[in-house]
């Protein structure tokens, strides 16, 4: 770490639990973000600012005017630009130290498996079940950690699935219906700061995982109700009948 980096990251290096060792781990980490929308925006900005060395941004969409109420990594001048390009520019302006790789397409199952091979943590900020199921399966098959978040209307949730651990449940233990209809923010609406709260928690969990600090949300689903500003924790174990990680799968 050079002097500029020591100064840039000084407020987290001074945390005894993190220290220089933790900062080095962040600088060496490769994290993949699926979706550069409402959740991907705060996640990517906090991780770039915190000094995560390599961010792989995956999105196939372009920025629209109606995104800007909540997708704060993009700006008005970015309308019609690919989201990954718009996000890259903002992240590099925030921290030029960060290496940013762009994947401006919807990855199929095979491509996803290949792309996450060298990634430490995968963060799912997508807005539909088929993508979430595919990301979960790829993470399970590659024994990667998945930080999953979702937010709609006034409700959000986050959990961590650590596929390096045999006992960790997976996303499909929680959402078992393949035909489940997806509600999206563009159809149902969402209050913007809620995405900041859940996205910030996803970034926090990622930093904790990379630096091996504290206890992750493995086997816990944190539910947040923005109307009452209340958190609730639902606990769950691996579903033995899960089609992805269950004994019979």
């Amino acid at each position, binding site marked *: 770490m050079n002097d500029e980096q020591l100064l840039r990251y000084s407020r987290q290096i001074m945390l005894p639990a993190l220290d220089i060792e933790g900062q080095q781990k962040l600088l060496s980490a490769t994290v993949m973000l699926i979706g550069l929308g409402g959740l991907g925006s705060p996640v990517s900005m906090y991780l770039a600012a915190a000094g995560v060395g390599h961010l792989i941004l995956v999105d196939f969409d372009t920025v629209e005017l109606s995104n800007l109420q909540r997708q704060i990594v993009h700006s008005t001048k970015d309308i019609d630009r690919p989201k990954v390009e718009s996000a890259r520019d903002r992240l590099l302006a925030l921290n030029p130290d960060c290496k940013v790789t762009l994947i401006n397409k919807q990855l199929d199952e095979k491509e996803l498996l290949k792309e996450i091979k060298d990634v430490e943590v995968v963060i799912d900020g997508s807005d539909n079940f088929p993508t979430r199921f595919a990301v979960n399966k790829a993470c399970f098959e590659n024994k990667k950690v998945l930080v999953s978040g979702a937010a709609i209307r006034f409700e959000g*949730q986050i959990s961590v699935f650590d596929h390096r651990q045999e006992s960790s449940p997976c996303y499909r*233990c*929680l*959402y*078992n*219906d393949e035909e489940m209809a997806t509600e999206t923010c563009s159809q149902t609406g969402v209050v913007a700061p809620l995405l900041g709260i859940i996205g910030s928690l996803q970034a926090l969990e990622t930093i904790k995982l990379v630096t091996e600090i504290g206890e992750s949300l493995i*086997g816990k*689903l944190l*539910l947040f*109700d923005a109307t*009452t500003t*209340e958190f*609730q924790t*639902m*606990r*769950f*174990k691996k*579903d*033995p*009948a899960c089609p992805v990680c269950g004994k*019979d799968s």
Partner: protein
Amino acid sequence: MNFKLPQALKDHMLDHALETPEIEVCGLLAAKSVEPASLYRVPNIAADPSTAFYMDPQAQIAALKVMRESGEELCGIYHSHPNSEALPSSRDRQQAAYPGTAYLIVSLMNAEPEIGSFIFDGNAFHDLALDIV
């Protein structure tokens, strides 16, 4: 420490277990202030519900939401054993996830249903005295 279960909730829990005695049923108990006040049935989605239970996570999320909106807190988890004693099975031990929560087991193996009551400390189950009030 005793777990004080209102008679009405005990009856509701037994009714639930006896509705489908051939399969394990399950649900949540919620307290308002200290004593259990509500019972939430949760579908059992285990592959073989005659010998195991796995609570439908989506129904659990929905029940937790109602509890939150009603000012209640989760205080207990119940399930039934159609053909075995009112004691935690090895799978019950593996699946237990809520430390400090009461686990009630309704056994239907004899003519008269029996309720076992336990507290989970994060690692193991311990006997918990049950008072029907």
